[in-house]
């Protein structure tokens, strides 16, 4: 990235130390450590079954690793649950889309505003003035995100009826609505055509650039990854085999071997 960035890459915001995760006898992740710096775009790549999604699920608290720790802003988090991580300021999207299918696009994104909603159900039932005020703020923010993602014309459509590419966009929108400082993107471009991929890249970079949101993404398309990320960590068989800038990773022999295969 040649041009000057509004948000300079800072100190580590997310640190993963010595994570090991196994399902029964199958080791998904073995003693893996890496960090994510504030305001950077960090990619996690690796062949199928390398443990990338499992890694995100450990960070987010869906899986509980047998060993290792996750620290957020230098603070080690003892009992990670998705809820606690959301409150710390970490949001995510899912590999196989986890949208609220029967709700409209706007409502899906509004759910992302949950942590900015402080009123309880009684206040909502009686529509007290502060509920209306809060709802207006949340709706305005959601509308902003909708126009940012250029999906205004589908905002009242139930998400389940949308094509895959748009659903991925909505999921990004929902993650953005949380105003989190870190967003984990699990294969945001899987199953998209070239044009949709380019769009998605543009949004990811724009978010990172304009809001300074730290992005951690998993992606298969090497070209895309090398273009948009600041640093890349490469996993293979649940172990880190490379970590550094795209150029460093590209020239790393272990990475080349993992991707192209080696003669034994």
């Amino acid at each position: 990235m040649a041009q000057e960035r509004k948000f300079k890459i800072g100190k580590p915001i997310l640190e993963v130390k010595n994570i090991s995760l196994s399902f029964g006898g199958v080791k998904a992740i073995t003693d893996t450590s890496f960090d994510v710096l504030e305001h950077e775009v960090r990619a996690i790549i690796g062949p199928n079954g390398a443990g990338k999604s499992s890694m995100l699920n450990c960070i987010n608290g869906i899986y509980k690793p047998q060993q290792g720790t996750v620290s957020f802003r230098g603070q080690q988090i003892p009992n990670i649950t998705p809820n606690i991580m959301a409150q710390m300021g970490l949001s995510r999207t899912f590999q196989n889309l986890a949208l609220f299918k029967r709700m409209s696009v706007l409502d899906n994104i509004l759910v992302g505003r949950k942590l900015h909603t402080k009123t309880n159900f009684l206040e909502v039932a009686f529509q007290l003035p502060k509920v209306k005020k809060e709802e207006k703020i949340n709706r305005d923010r959601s509308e902003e995100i909708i126009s940012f993602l250029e999906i205004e014309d589908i905002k009242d459509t139930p998400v389940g009826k949308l094509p895959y590419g748009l659903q991925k966009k909505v999921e990004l929108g929902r993650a953005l609505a949380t105003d989190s400082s870190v967003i984990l993107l699990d294969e945001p471009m899987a199953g998209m055509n070239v044009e949709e991929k380019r769009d998605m890249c543009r949004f990811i970079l724009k978010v990172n650039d304009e809001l300074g949101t730290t992005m951690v993404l998993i992606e298969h398309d090497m070209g895309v990854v090398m273009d948009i990320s600041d640093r890349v960590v490469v996993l293979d068989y649940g172990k880190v085999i490379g970590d550094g800038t795209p150029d460093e990773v590209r020239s790393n022999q272990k990475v080349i071997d993992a991707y192209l295969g080696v003669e034994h």
Partner: protein
Amino acid sequence: MMKPVFMTYTKKDLINLAVCMVLSVLVIPSFITTEYWYTSILIPWLCLALATIGQQIVMGYTGQLALGAAGFMAAGAFAMFNLILRVPDLGFVGSLIVSGLIAAAFGILFGLPSLKVRGIYLMVATLASQFFIIWMIDKFGWFKNYDSSGIITAQDIVILGKPFTTPLAMYFVCLAVTTVLTLLAMNMARGSTGRNWMAVRDMDIAAESMGVSLLRTKVQAFAISAFYCGVAGALFAFCYLKSLEPVAFDIKLSFKILFMCILGGLGTINGAFIGAAFILLFPVLLNAIGNNVFHGAIDATIISSIEQVIFGGLMIIFMIYEPLGMAKLWENIKQKWKTKFPTMNIKNLTSSIGKKS
């Protein structure tokens, strides 16, 4: 989507509400004079619609398969009886709210399994509420004030010193309570509370990742649902049955409310009213057909069997072709009309038919 003009309501909602209010407050009382309509149709319709809203909240909105609405209704009804008997200072409205809260406490207790089990297993777990509450009332004489006859007469309804004993007066009591609670339910369903419920229903792991607490949301839905059922049960006993007996709140009533919920349309408030009206009126209609078309040639037992057959068939048909029930069917018909006759002003037409939403 239309912009809300008042709170969360669009102009169309306000027109619908006004039409419903005019219909129910002015038109019905001045045109319907037979007591039968109030005591056997309108009052139970309002009570059961209220209970169905309760079932909607937990099943239609939060997606928790629960089957025990009648148990919570029994809790509300007997709480009401005891509150009026033992704490007369509370007054009718106060007692109604407190009996709802007592039912809500049961709702929290029996909603806790929803954190661990789901689907059909949760349905079986919530059946416990049905049987436990009825058993408790039968077992401990205190709840029935040691009445040995088995059927207790409900006390007269007195609000602010005025008795409400005529069918029309009781209809207005039910109407007032149902209207207020329906509006509150709609506010919740359309606001952030409802969004949390639906998020848990559609994808719980994503909801949790957005900061929605599964524990709080599910338990809250069960509590609110049981509150609605409790109030509905109290009204059911005091305005419709005018007596209190645990058998009136058996599993059959729970199933009836479940059917109302599904046929009306899961996840809609107006569906509760449509479903309740259908299930209440359908047997009446069949009887009328039996008497007037066939002049009693068909035995009454056969008619009630036919009723069961048709209900069963309809349930299956709806589950396959329109899982979102009659409310959705109604929406579709309106949509078709709109596309077929774009020049016609459909708005006037639909609001004159008036839908309770």
